[in-house]
């Protein structure tokens, strides 16, 4: 793990009219770490993540992602990041191979590279026999693992995962986290949001957002100690209870 920050954010804010979705958040993510980005529904996690991916323009504040300025160099950032949104976003009417070809192609991979990547991925996910199956025919767990793999097809420096394991069974969740560890092991910085507190424990460091602000940020062990709790779940509940807004 090197000391340079993969992501460095200061006072990043996003307002929608009168509503401040993200309120002057400041944090750094180190290269190669698994950074857990926690918060209740409506706390502003997804908005913050979308800003860092260059999908949403910040209202104010500064940010540097993969060494590039978020305002001026967002297209350069995009070459260096992968993003897996909450919504499943592969093309259901294309096969696995075709999805790979499409996303690999728009990231500028050569035919040879795409072929190798696809081969590797299929083998890794044990999906060799499904290479030419339409994606819509696959079960959700496989789809999620597949979209994670596709978001990594261009070997990005940082990968953003927005609730990647939502609605997925426990076995697949564990397999998914194995994949995350493997990615981190290869040096990819992983920025992940989740609602599962056992998953929070797997992260190197965790931040907890409440009402658009970051209320806590440290390793899971340190946070547990700081809040005098038995585990991350208790930490989360203590903090989230203070929230004034929610989405329901």
């Amino acid at each position, binding site marked *: 793990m090197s000391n340079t920050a993969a992501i460095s954010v200061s006072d990043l804010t996003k307002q929608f009219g009168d509503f401040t979705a993200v309120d002057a958040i400041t944090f750094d993510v180190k290269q190669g770490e698994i950074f857990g980005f926690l918060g209740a529904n409506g706390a502003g996690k997804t908005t913050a993540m979308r800003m860092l991916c260059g999908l*949403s323009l910040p209202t104010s504040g500064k940010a540097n992602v993969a060494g590039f300025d978020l305002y001026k160099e967002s297209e*350069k950032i995009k070459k260096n990041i992968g993003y897996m949104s909450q919504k499943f*976003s592969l093309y259901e009417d294309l096969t696995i191979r075709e999805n790979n070809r499409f996303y690999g192609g728009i990231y500028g991979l050569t035919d040879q590279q795409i072929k190798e990547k696809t081969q590797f991925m299929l083998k890794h996910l044990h999906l060799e026999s499904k290479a030419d199956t339409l994606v819509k025919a696959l079960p959700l767990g496989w789809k999620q693992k597949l979209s994670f793999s596709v978001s990594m097809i261009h070997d990005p420096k940082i990968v953003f995962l927005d609730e990647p394991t939502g609605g997925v069974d426990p076995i697949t969740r564990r397999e998914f986290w194995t994949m995350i560890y493997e990615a981190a092991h290869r040096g990819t910085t992983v920025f992940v949001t989740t609602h599962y507190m056992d998953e929070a424990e797997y992260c190197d460091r965790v931040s907890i957002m409440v009402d658009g602000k970051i209320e806590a940020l440290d390793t899971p062990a340190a946070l547990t100690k700081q809040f005098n709790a038995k585990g991350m779940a208790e930490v989360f509940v203590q903090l989230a209870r203070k929230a004034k807004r929610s989405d329901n």
Partner: protein
Amino acid sequence: MRVLRILLEKEFRQIFRNPAILRLIFIMPVIQLLVLPLAADYEVKDINIAVVDQDHSSYSRQLTNKISASKYFNLVEYTNSYDEAIRGVEKDEADVVLQIPASFEKDLVKEDKAQLFMALNAINGVKANLGGVYLRSIINDFNGEVRLEWLQLPRFNPQPMIQISSINWFNPLLNYQFFMVPGILVILVTMVGSFLAALNIVKEKEIGTIEQINVTPIRKHQFILGKLIPFWVLGLVVLSIGLLLARVFYGIIPEGSLFTIYIFALVYLLSVLGLGLLISTYTETQQQAMLISFFIIMIFILLGGLYTSIDSMPYWAQIFTKFNPVTYFIEVMRMVVLKGSSLYDIRYHLLIVTGFGIILNGWAVINYKKRS
């Protein structure tokens, strides 16, 4: 270029896997071109007429025979009560009532002048209007015949009569289909192009794949071109099917060259697709996109000069037609198909529609934002 190729590959794969789009592309032209020109016909035939004959003379009978012999009129009632005939109109059995008053023949012979009365059911304005015109011309004809009959008679007082003979240039038989089919073809191409283009990007918004694309370093114009070209090709396919059907079923063979038609269609499609793409950059759901394109295309079609002559529109509407790409294509189609106009003759049309294309597509590229 490689990125564009990858995009096109993906779009075409998706189109060929979508049975709804394929059906739309092949069935819509067939139905529209085979059914519409036969049904949407301005010629009014089978006008139901009730004749109130209160004269019962040989002239009144001659006139009645002449009317019922015409292919435009059906004699549904022959009575001597005007009230009875009007009841027929009320029941929608008759469209026109012609009253021949009791002294018709007497007045005509003695005073050289007689009166007839015509009552028209104006609920269907077109039918009433044309029915009136046809009936008038039959009566005029009858009038001429009567005069001819009297020509030998010494007491005839010759009155000059003007006879008009006319020739219909470019469509000598005034074949209504020659006039309509090229126009309907334009509408087809317009609808297929704009609807498909409008729905496409919005669909990616709905299913969420647009986020995944926006997070890649893809360039905006690449993305828009990748969406434009497939529908460009589809539009030309529809046009080709349409031209083929027009030739096989209506014997319409363009006087001008197909090359001219295709050059113009290429440019025209660019502007129509641009409109569709622009709509899809402004909308969030396919429903919104569909309603907005429907609204705009409807106005374009109604004010495009297919169903009504632009020259008879009010001034403000005529100004509007100048900004309506549909108007230009309908004009060009008719010019090339019926008159044999060349590329040189349609140069201004070409130039203006190119302008529309550049503006609409440029606007779409600008309004498509990868970052909101």
